[in-house]
């Protein structure tokens, strides 16, 4: 028996898709939410420092698995090789119910006003497709607020004089300071910076029927065992299911989006948990697979009318892949600064996100998340030997006496930094895999040079006796902050979706995730993905009630 028709299929139960599913289901649409991963619980997560989403030496517990999901990466000299999810070049984001929000660090940033009009602010940048978003911060502001209150954010950005205006404060206070915070805050103030408590999608007090953070060591890269970290898996997805209008199917790999002879989407073809190929008919389809996989799915959905894939008439699908070039500095102190109190990251400054003389963009700086010993191993000074007696002494002496201040550089989108589908390599289901190629813009490195110098200054003022900078390379950037591959814009010739996140060429097909970001801010992108998902869902529901996209 074929599955019964639904109003909407949402592909991907991550930060974007989880919200879309809930909003549509609550508006009365029948929804099938397809997720290729599992619904993990914190009890499936063995708090394993070699097998988590940050250190995946022995695999990524929240997916995708190494056995079935290869990718091809092409490096700068044109050498191609097959990589697996546990290789860093894979540019992985978790594949499970909740997506990256199960195991993320959970920083909850609103982008700044300038982040939505980068081209107007800085002009054109040679070698970059830098542009403005077709929407402004003010279009997104009410939806940022909804994400903050419905998913749940703690923190206090009232001392951030650079933040964009907000109508309502954050729903939860900041967690009490850890030791790094008490060291870094006065130092930042002495330098004239404006430090504040990082907004985090993490309960500091009971919220949403769940417990507050217990300040443990196992935070970024892991699932929270007291459910204090807020993602779509423990907020909106349960709500979507509670409406009775939404069905969630896990371990279902979507093969392609199906269109009819008139160019309308009629549904999707997917492999179910037993690897049987199923077809699901729907009035609309929403693609929320993350920047790499969303582009891959559109490119793999070929037909007579769409020989190059859906939405790809002008060859923009998969282009402008961007993430964040992380940069900053390490400092060594003569006293213990590590207090074993999670989540670790606590204090930030936005003094250098914009307005840096001679530079385009910038980024925030914050102290780093709590570190497990294995994460400290590669972080000895560049002039020091990475093994032997010297390295062991380094570990012993400095593990508890080092602070990292770092942040994400707002990257310049590059047209040739891209996702394609590989002509040869296929995944376990026979679907052509992502082929990643290209690299960063030189401006990203210039900004990183500047930002890391500021981080070094901050650490020295805080009392560091030795500091050194960490600079990114020019290699491909995607990773957990992957964005940009289905750009949002008004002109169908230089973008993939319109400002409603509707694919230009196909009225009943939507992309709602970080793929649509024109630029990716100097911030962790998740709250923007969430806010935009609320906004796009609102528009979708309004249009649905009118035309039903027929």
């Amino acid at each position: 028996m074929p599955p019964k028709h639904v109003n909407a299929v949402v592909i991907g139960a991550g930060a974007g898709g989880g919200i879309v599913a809930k909003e549509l289901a609550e508006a009365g649409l029948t929804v099938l939410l397809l997720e290729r991963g599992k619904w993990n619980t914190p009890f499936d997560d063995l708090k394993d420092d070699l097998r988590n989403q940050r250190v995946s030496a022995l695999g990524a517990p929240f997916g995708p698995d190494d056995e079935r999901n290869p990718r091809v990466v092409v490096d700068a000299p044109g050498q191609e090789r097959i990589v697996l999810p546990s290789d860093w070049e894979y540019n992985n984001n978790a594949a499970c119910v909740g997506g990256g929000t199960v195991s993320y660090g959970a920083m909850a940033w609103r982008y700044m006003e300038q982040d939505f009009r980068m081209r107007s602010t800085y002009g054109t940048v040679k070698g970059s497709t830098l542009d403005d978003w077709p929407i402004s911060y003010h279009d997104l502001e009410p939806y940022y607020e909804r994400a903050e209150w419905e998913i749940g954010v703690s923190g206090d950005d009232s001392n951030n004089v650079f933040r964009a205006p907000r109508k309502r404060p954050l729903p939860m206070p900041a967690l009490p300071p850890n030791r790094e915070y008490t060291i870094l805050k006065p130092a930042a103030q002495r330098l004239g910076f404006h430090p504040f408590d990082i907004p985090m999608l993490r309960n500091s007090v009971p919220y949403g029927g769940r417990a507050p953070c217990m300040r443990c060591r196992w935070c970024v890269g892991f699932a929270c065992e007291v459910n204090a970290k807020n993602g779509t898996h423990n907020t909106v997805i349960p709500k979507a299911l509670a409406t009775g209008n939404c069905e969630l199917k896990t371990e279902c790999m979507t093969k392609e989006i199906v269109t009819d002879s008139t160019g309308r989407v009629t549904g999707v073809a997917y492999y179910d948990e037993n690897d049987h190929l199923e077809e699901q008919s729907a009035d609309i389809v929403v693609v929320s697979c993350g920047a790499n996989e969303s582009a891959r799915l559109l490119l793999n959905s070929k037909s007579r009318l769409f020989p190059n894939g859906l939405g790809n008439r002008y060859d923009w699908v998969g282009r402008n892949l961007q993430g964040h070039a992380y940069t900053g500095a390490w400092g060594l102190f003569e006293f213990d600064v590590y207090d074993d109190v999670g989540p670790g990251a606590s204090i930030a400054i936005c003094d250098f996100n914009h307005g840096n003389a001679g530079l385009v963009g910038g980024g925030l700086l914050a102290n780093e998340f709590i570190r497990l010993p294995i994460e400290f191993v590669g972080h000895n000074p560049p002039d020091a030997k990475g093994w032997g007696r010297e390295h062991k002494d380094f570990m012993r002496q400095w593990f508890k006496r080092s602070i990292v201040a770092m942040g994400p550089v707002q990257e310049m989108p590059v047209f040739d930094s891209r996702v394609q589908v590989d002509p040869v390599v296929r995944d376990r289901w026979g679907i052509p895999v992502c082929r990643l190629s290209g690299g960063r813009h030189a401006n990203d490195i210039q900004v990183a040079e500047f930002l890391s110098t500021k981080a070094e200054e901050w650490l020295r003022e805080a009392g560091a006796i030795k500091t050194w900078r960490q600079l990114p390379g020019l290699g491909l950037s995607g990773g957990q902050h992957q964005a940009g591959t289905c750009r949002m814009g008004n002109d169908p010739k230089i973008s993939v979706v319109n400002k409603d996140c509707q694919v230009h060429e196909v009225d009943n097909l939507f992309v709602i995730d970080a793929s649509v970001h024109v630029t990716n801010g100097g911030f962790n992108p998740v709250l923007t993905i969430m806010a935009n998902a609320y906004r796009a869902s609102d528009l979708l529901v309004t249009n649905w009630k009118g035309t039903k996209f027929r």
Partner: protein
Amino acid sequence: MTAKKGLKRREFIRLAASAMAVGSTVSCGGVVSPWRSLTADEADTLASLCNQIIPEDQDLGAVSAGVVNYIDVQLSSHLKRMKKVYRRGLAQLNDISFKRYGKRFASLPEQQQIEFLTAIDQDKAWKETPLHKFFRIVVDHTMQGFYGDPRHGGNRDRASWAMLKLPYPPVRGRFHEDANATNSWKAS
């Protein structure tokens, strides 16, 4: 593969004793290997290599903390695809050691081992060579086995965490995968 002689009896017993679970294979030399993936000779060479990456001092070193066991276990499971790399890399390390010093790597005096590895790691002539790449891989895996979770076969008695004065169990939170009760919560 060349069969190597002169495996020190004392060394062999120590290595054999440190293999936690024994899936026996017969090595080229006819010696029954106590390891899952490595021959006794390979394990011997690897042990000398690991011990220069994390030497023993007032705290346990790589070998006494079970790093060879960690690598051996992983080469039969998650890092299966690296088995050939290890086989070739260890053989090449010995070959070049023979050419340069007239002895297999494990038989070199400590100072010579360090000199040799430092050259492989840092000298321009060695960069981009397969042996250089192999050495970097072994450094990574040794660090994982030493500083990673004991459940994977290394970091015996959480030695490295004790060395870094990292409290165990953690002060806050529950550490529900205790090394002594692997997956017990799953069985119930």
